[in-house]
């Protein structure tokens, strides 16, 4: 195996740093999306179950959910 040039070493170091940065951002976005998806799933299920047991949704469901969603974020994140 030939000797790695200084240029190559600098390139590798920069690339490794860049890759690890991208990896970290990618994982963060995955977690965020997955958690948002789960909270959204709870909202949809609550709505669906409430209707299935005969409750009439009289209040502005979505607006109230948005106002209280922080509680669910806190519980499940």
């Amino acid at each position: 195996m030939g000797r790695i040039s200084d240029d190559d070493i600098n390139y590798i170091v920069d690339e490794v740093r860049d890759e690890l940065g991208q990896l970290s951002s990618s994982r963060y976005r995955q977690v965020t999306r997955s958690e948002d998806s789960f909270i959204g799933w709870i909202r949809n299920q609550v709505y669906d179950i409430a209707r299935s047991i005969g409750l009439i949704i009289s209040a502005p469901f979505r607006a109230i959910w948005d106002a209280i969603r922080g509680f669910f974020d806190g519980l499940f994140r």
Partner: protein
Amino acid sequence: MDRFSQILIKHKRQFEQKLRQLLPDSTSEQRQLIIKRLSERKRAEEEKPPKIAIIGQAGAGKSSTINALFGTSLPVGHVGACTTEEAELRVEAQTVDGANGVITVFDMPGLGDDPDLDCAEYKQLYNQVLSECDVAVWVINAASRAMGYDKQMIRDVVAPSQDQLTSRLVIGLNQVDLMQPGSWFHRANLPSKSQKETIAKRLEYIIELFRDIVPGIDVSRIIPYSAMRGYHLEQLFEAMLNACDSDRAWVLYGRKSIEDFAATIDPDLLR
């Protein structure tokens, strides 16, 4: 008891208060029933395996991609159990144990695999299977110049159906580690400078190819990666989550099992 049920029990009172805000006409019994059913539905949803359709030519690395993402042990080049939905439609599907639970893989037949099927039947088959799937991964061998199959499939099957097929589609350019000039930096598990340029050009070509034929395609879901090296698997998985229905993304995420990329790099380079 699962974590979700534990949290519900621990915070039941607060949960019920929030439900009362949300559903002011509800009784206490109804709110308790909602909490109970929510817990049951969570368990049922978790037990439904994420369904993944995998498309691509033989040798593109379909099984190795699923194995690398979910810790499954699909034999590479496997032939799955055949299920016949209707006489003329055949899809190979397999439910396999992953590191974090079961997933179902639909191994989609390639155009021309069955000479008795015409293009309309392929389209029908793809529409049917993809409508049931959480996400579809189209695996292309990035190192291969033979794009005839993929072009024909895109033109004849994907393009005419527009959103039905494209909304859940992720395109993976696998085996980028084998691209010319073949100078992968093993210690850093990264492409060399010249290889990186080749990969970028290939990606550009594939993006143009898909965009020309399927204008609605989300090109951010075209990901160069290597299943064998564990390179850019997180980006591939992120694209899959983005393609997945919002209500199912958390279930898919729960099945993820990707080797830590940093563990594939020589520790000396991380100092």
